[in-house]
Each structure stands twice: as structure tokens, then as C-alpha cells.
């Protein structure tokens, strides 16, 4: 059941080739109690999500805090072991490999192709290492044993992220948040990855450097032909950089589709609610969290039927009992809502 090509089907019903195909991915955290660590239940942080990532695109993963975005992407890079599902990765050599049940040893040679940029630039750099050692670590661990070679490569990477190479002997404490994030990006790029997963890479940064950092990511994508999975809880950021958008709510993807379709013509009430909350004029307000009626459901004890029904403005009786399944609309959009056919929802208005 394991191994290269296991159950892989590179079926692309849309012309462009995929780099990643996720099927029914689940991550349940056991809730342990008491002296003997008895399992009392599960936090269904990611509860069966499926999506494709196309070569060279940016797929945005959005949702409120606690919706399972971080858990999902950590499963993709196998920083967490998924409970179930498939993560099919299209390798450099053109093979399809299911990452979900590879051992650590089997994963190691694939690591360079998939790297991550982290949210908090204070926690993502080891305070006891110089920039040279931080960015040089992936190089060292993947066979670049000559220190001078590493110095050359780190210099190149620092230029790539618009930092001065002279800074490489410094420690992280000498840099601002924005600069540290660039160091993190340089480290992620050190091994020439094909897929870069960025988990809210700008949300911990000052507003004034957010745009700079996003632009850098876009430029790098262009220059290096990267594919991004970009996690955000802020739709204004997503609008700026994504090609497609997946909206997550309590461990499920409730809507996924082309950016413009999702933004101008949302099909799921949750998407519409998020869009409604996007401030359009004042850029400062973009840092505030999305005000939505009620609280996010508890993934340890989700509501019956549609998880969104306690907060949904369009909920009907059926929504509390029946679980919606993904429906394809407009060709390649997938929406999990029982009333998808009948609802007319407002999107963002241009201007």
C-alpha cells in the first residue's frame, strides 16, 4: 500500500499539471485525561480535506483561527503524522509518491523539494546560530560539506532575498522582524524547493513591511518558478497574491475555486461572511480578525449536520441534521453546502 506510485492517478482534468494531490486528509489529536492517559475523544483539527495544487500557482488556504490550517500544512510536510488520507507528491523525476505513510528515512531525500516558511520570525531562527549557519544548515545536511561553498551559496541566497551578504556573520537578534522573515525565506529556498508552504508568513510582521514581504515572495515565485501554498486568515492578503483559494472551516474545506470566482461570486455562506468582513478602504484595519457572528465551532465537539449551521444566516432545519458533501459547481469549483444550488450570495464589490 505504501511506496512510490501507490494509488496515484495523475489525472488532470484541467490541462495544467499538478504538483500535489491531497485526498481525504485527516488529523485527529487524541484528548488524553487522567493518570493513565486514557483517550477521551479527539480534536478533529483536519477532518477529511481534498485538494490539488497546480505547478506554479499560489493556492491560498484561508479560515478563522482554529480552523485547522496550520495542522493541515504541517501534515503535508510530515511535521505531523496524518491520521488518514493521501498526500500525493509529484517529484522532480516525474514520479508520484504518497508522502502520508513514508518513514522519516524515506522522507529525507524528498525534503529538499518541499520547504516551509513560518509565521513567527522570532521563533523560526535559532538565536544561538549566525545567519550563515542558519541558512547553511540545509546545505550542510544535504551534502555541501565545504564551508566555503556554503558561504558562497548563502551569499547568493541573501542577495536573492534582498539582504546584504555582509550580514551573514550576525546573529538573529541583530535583525528586524521583516529581515528575519527574509532570512527564513532564504533558508527555505536554500535547497531549490519546488513547493514552498508559507504559514501566515506576514501576519506577525508590522503592517509597513507586510506588503514588502509579499512582493518579495511574488518576485521569487516569478524568478524561480515556485509553487506556493499560502496560509492566511486575512482575505485582503490572499486577494493580492493567490490564484486559487480554499476556505477552511473546522477542519473541512467548505469552498475551493479560482480566486476571482470565490471573491466575486462566493457559493458558500461562510465564504460570503468572510468576504463581508474584509475592510476595503483602510489598510490598517486589515490586521483585525474577521468579525463573524458567534464563535468558531469546537473541533473536539463539532455541531451536528453542517458544522457552520449555528452561525449561518441561511441555515434551514435540514442543515442541523444532514451533513453536506462536496458538490462541483461551475466546472471546477467545489462547495460543501446543502443549499448551494438555491442561494444567491454577495461577493466583494469592485472599487
Amino acid at each position: 500500500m505504501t511506496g512510490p506510485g501507490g494509488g496515484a492517478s495523475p489525472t488532470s482534468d484541467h490541462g495544467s499539471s499538478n504538483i500535489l494531490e491531497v485526498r481525504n486528509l485527516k488529523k485527529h489529536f487524541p484528548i488524553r485525561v487522567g493518570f493513565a492517559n486514557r483517550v477521551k475523544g479527539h480534536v478533529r483539527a483536519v477532518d477529511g480535506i481534498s485538494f490539488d495544487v497546480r505547478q506554479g500557482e499560489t493556492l491560498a488556504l484561508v479560515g478563522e483561527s482554529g480552523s485547522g490550517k496550520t495542522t493541515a500544512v504541517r501534515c503535508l510536510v510530515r511535521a505531523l503524522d496524518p491520521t488518514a488520507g493521501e498526500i500525493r507528491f509529484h517529484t522532480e523525476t516525474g514520479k508520484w509518491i504518497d508522502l502520508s505513510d513514508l518513514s522519516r528515512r524515506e522522507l529525507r531525500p524528498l525534503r529538499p523539494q518541499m520547504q516551509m516558511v513560518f509565521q513567527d520570525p522570532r521563533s523560526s531562527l535559532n538565536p544561538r546560530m549566525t545567519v550563515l549557519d542558519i541558512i547553511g544548515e540545509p546545505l550542510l545536511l544535504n551534502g555541501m560539506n565545504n564551508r566555503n561553498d556554503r558561504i558562497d551559496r548563502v551569499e547568493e541566497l541573501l542577495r536573492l532575498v534582498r539582504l546584504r551578504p555582509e550580514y551573514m556573520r550576525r546573529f538573529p537578534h541583530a535583525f528586524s522582524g521583516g529581515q528575519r522573515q527574509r532570512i527564513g525565506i532564504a533558508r527555505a529556498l536554500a535547497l531549490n524547493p519546488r513547493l514552498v508552504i508559507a504559514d501566515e508568513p506576514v501576519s506577525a510582521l508590522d503592517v509597513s513591511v507586510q506588503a514588502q514581504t509579499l512582493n518579495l515572495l511574488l518576485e521569487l515565485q516569478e524568478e524561480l518558478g515556485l509553487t506556493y501554498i499560502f496560509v492566511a486568515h486575512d482575505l485582503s492578503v490572499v486577494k493580492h497574491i493567490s490564484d486559487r483559494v480554499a476556505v477552511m472551516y473546522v477542519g473541512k474545506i467548505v469552498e475551493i475555486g479560482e480566486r476571482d470566482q470565490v471573491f466575486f461570486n462566493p457559493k458558500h455562506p461562510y465564504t460570503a461572511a468572510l468576504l463581508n468582513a474584509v475592510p476595503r478602504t483602510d489598510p490598517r484595519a486589515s490586521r483585525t480578525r474577521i468579525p463573524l457572528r458567534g464563535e468558531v465551532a469546537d473541533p473536539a465537539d463539532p455541531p451536528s449536520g453542517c458544522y457552520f449551521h449555528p452561525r449561518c444566516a441561511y441555515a434551514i432545519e435540514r442543515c442541523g441534521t444532514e451533513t453536506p458533501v462536496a458538490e462541483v459547481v461551475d466546472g471546477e469549483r467545489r462547495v460543501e453546502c446543502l443549499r448551494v444550488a438555491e442561494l444567491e450570495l454577495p461577493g466583494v464589490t469592485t472599487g
Partner: protein
Amino acid sequence: MGTSERPPPRPGDTGGGNVAVLVEEDRISVAPQWKLMWWRFRKHKVAVSAGFVIAAFYLVALLANFFAYSDPDDSRPAQSFIPPSPIQWFAEDGTFGPYVHPLVGERDFETFKKVWEADETVSIPIQLFARGYEYKLLGLFDTDIHLIGVPEGYESESTIFLLGTDNFGRDIFSRLVLATRTSLTIGLVGVFLSLVLGVTLGGISGYYGGVPDSIIQRIIEILRSVPVIPLWLGIAAALPLTWSPTRIYFSITIIISLIGWTTLGREVRGRFLQLRHEDFIMAARLCGARDGRIIRVHMVPLLTSHIIAATTLAVPLMIIAETSLSFLGLGLRPPAISWGVMLQDAQNVQTVAQAIWMLIPVAPVILAVLAFNFLGDGVRDAADPYGG
């Protein structure tokens, strides 16, 4: 614009800033953590002084017999309870130079106490690097040179009494110097063992979690519920009587260290648990680092300062333990010489009333404990300036 960003030194961006500031900023930027720590520690004047005090203590401990001038085991009942007699600096005829007058004891027939008077007609000069009793310097070289002493023809045992004598007529200063060596070193192996156990087991517990963590945590809970004093008595009774008191005590400290690691073990576990979720650990793993490298390169270096601080704070506990246990007769016993043993000699009220100077060993105990605590606090503050 980009000015609200937290702005640590960025020399490149400072424009026409002044050169001195630039150099200073650069120095901080490229300084490894331990250097920053040292710079912060240096500012902590009390801790630095405490460091010097401790260094002095260990210098004395290392060269104890050199600093002593009288044989610490040489008992002379005839000269018991001589009060402290300082060195004289100026002779009556105006010449300068350290000397002592010999003491003559006379019984006061009202109080039956012996009263010691200086015979001012005789002056015995004090010499540096004089000959005295024989010993092994650093445990290696046979010698009889001492820091101070008296000229040939006299013996320091019956002439110099800087801090007086005890009930057996032994010189308190010389005994104190030797006690310093015992009290400051006998528990160190135990402290070191606790350290190794604490870091290893705490590290395993925090890094791997799950079953190993549960097992180690249960062990810690059990060990922590063991009452130390009865255990101590039990071990003392179980060890062979033919052993010397010092050897018995040393063995006990080692056995007790098998319990003593739990505090540090918990701390290390907590730090590992916390570190395990840091993004830079995940980043290292994502580029292929194995467990060994992650622990060695990414976790332990962030803990060293805490480990140093914890150890510095463990040493005074060891000193107090020795002193109080020996004082109670449970620790070291004569002929071993330690601060606790010396205080035990001063245990009864009559002695204290007659010869208050026998309580002098309290002073180094307090000084050493305070110095270690100040040093430990300083190290901890320097390691973690934001507390926590």
C-alpha cells in the same frame, strides 16, 4: 514608513551615523549568545564580586595546607581555649614588622578560667613562606612551606593563634582552612551526578514525550516523596563501619544525588517541551536534521546557561546540607575536619560561653552560601534577562 518596525542596529541603514556607535552596534550584532550573556553578567556588580569571593574560597581549598600554619590535628590540652590573638605590626621601639608575643596562661582562682597574657618582653617575628609541618602540596609534592610561620627554633603551634584555639588546643584558623576544603568539595561529585542525570533524563522525557515521559515522570514523583533524612540515616547505617567518615559521607552524597536530580530534571523537561515546538526545530527537521543533531545543536546550547545557573544554586544547598548534618552528628565526624564538624565542637552552651570564637566557622558558611546564591542569580539574570 518602515520606521515602526522594531529597529535593532542596522548599520547599513543608519546613513551618516557616527562611527563609534556603528562599531559598537556591529560588535553586538556578531556577538554569540554567551558573549552577550557575559556582557550582561559583567554589569551585575554584586554577582561579579560574589564570583571573586568564590574563586578565593576555592583557591584556599586548593592550597589549604599552604595557608594553614599549624598542624590542624595537633592537640595540646595545655593550651585550650586561647582567644584570638592578632599579629602585631609596630614594636615599642618603633620598628615595623609583623611579630607575635608568646602567650603565658595563668589560672584565675576566682573563675577557674585560664587567662592568657602576652609576654611583651619577647617578640617572635612572623615570616612569609616559613617552614612548618609537612604535607603534600596539591596532593603531589612533599613540602613543609607555609604562607606564614615563625623562625627556626620556634613552632607556630605554640605561638600563632590568629583565631584562637579550641577545646583540644588546636589552632582554629588552620582547622578552618582545611574545613573549607572539605565543605566546599565533598558534595561536588554529587552535584555533578545530579546534573548529568537531570539533563539526560529530563531531556529524554521532554524530547520524546509519550511512554518514556510518563515513566520518568512517575519515577520523579516517587523519588520526590522519599524523606531525605531517614533515608540518610538508613544508608549511613548500611555502609560498612570500617570506612572512614569522609568516605561514608562521600558515598551518601552520591546516593542522595540519585534523588537530587529531580528538580533539574523537571526544569530541563519543561524547557525541552517548550523548545520542541519552536519553529526553528521544525525547520531543522524539515531540512533533514536527525534527533541527535537537533538535541546537540538546537536544544542543549539554549539550555546551558540555565544548567549553569541551576548548578551554581545547587552548590550552596550542598554546603548547608554538610554543615547541618555534621552539626547534628549525622554527617562527617572527627577526625574529619569540616565547617559542620567544627561547629559541632562548639555545640554546648558552656563552650560557647567560655570561648565564643569557636563559632567563627559560621562566618564562612554564611559567606559562601550568600556568594553562591548571588552568583547564581547573576548568571540566571544574564542568561534570561526577561525572566521566566
